[in-house]
């Protein structure tokens, strides 16, 4: 069999990922998380008389702590593999990446394992966030004053 024919055969037989189904799931998951956060924020504002910014901080805190807790003691990884971007793009993904790298590298010791690999996955977010914010800030200052 020639190479091209073989590649065609491989393409035919490999199962295509169900993109449509996946994206509906992701949309629902992300959307539900947003709606849940908004409901809690409205409750905090209306019943506890908090400022809007304080309520936002409390909701983010709840989401981050629950993501860390679920990753450490329950099987959060299973859902992350299933729902991918639905859980990675919200702030839960940031907490999940820190927690999972802490758990994975704990076997190498407290300093050389856990300490030095803590930001293995979340480091890129912090690095590019700060660098891009700095660059955009300079651009805005130079062009708009």
């Amino acid at each position, binding site marked *: 069999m020639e190479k091209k024919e073989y590649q065609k055969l491989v393409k035919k037989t490999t199962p295509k990922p169900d993109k449509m189904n*996946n*994206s509906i799931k*992701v*949309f*629902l*998951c*992300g*959307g*539900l*998380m*947003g*709606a849940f*956060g*908004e409901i*809690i*924020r*409205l409750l905090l504002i209306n019943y506890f008389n908090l400022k809007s910014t304080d309520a*936002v*901080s409390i909701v*983010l*805190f709840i*989401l*981050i*702590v629950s993501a860390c*807790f679920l990753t*450490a*003691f329950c099987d959060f990884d299973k859902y992350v593999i299933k729902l*991918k*971007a639905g859980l*990675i*793009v*919200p*702030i839960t*993904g*940031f*907490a999940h990446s*820190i*927690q999972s790298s*802490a*758990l*994975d590298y*704990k*076997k190498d010791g407290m300093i050389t394992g*856990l300490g030095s690999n*803590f930001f293995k996955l*979340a480091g*890129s*977010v*912090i690095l*590019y*966030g*700060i660098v*891009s*914010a*700095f660059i*955009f*800030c*300079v651009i*805005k*200052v130079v062009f708009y004053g």
Partner: protein
Amino acid sequence: MTILYSFLFCGFVCLIGQMILDNSKLTPGHVTSILVVVGAFLGMIGFYDKIIDIVGMGASIPITSFGNTLFASSYKGFQSMGFLGIFKNMLCDVSLGICSAIIFSFIFSIPNKPKD
């Protein structure tokens, strides 16, 4: 009404991330980095503040708000203190997210047995 808007917006951002993941060879690390940069850019245009006014919490949950908050606090620092203010004020508002993630993941990783 803001509940519906935040449902739609948060789902939409996640959908963009999933589309990038599905149709290219980029990893989740790439996707989150790209979204952070996009958030900082939208913050520079002044578009993200308008979204937050309309959508509410749904705009603060996706990782794009991380970039927006970084930009907004550094710009505020520039206005109050000049060039050094950018460096001094950059992490003020995101400190909640980073520090709570660090502290709680450290605490929760202590009782766990190391995986093989």
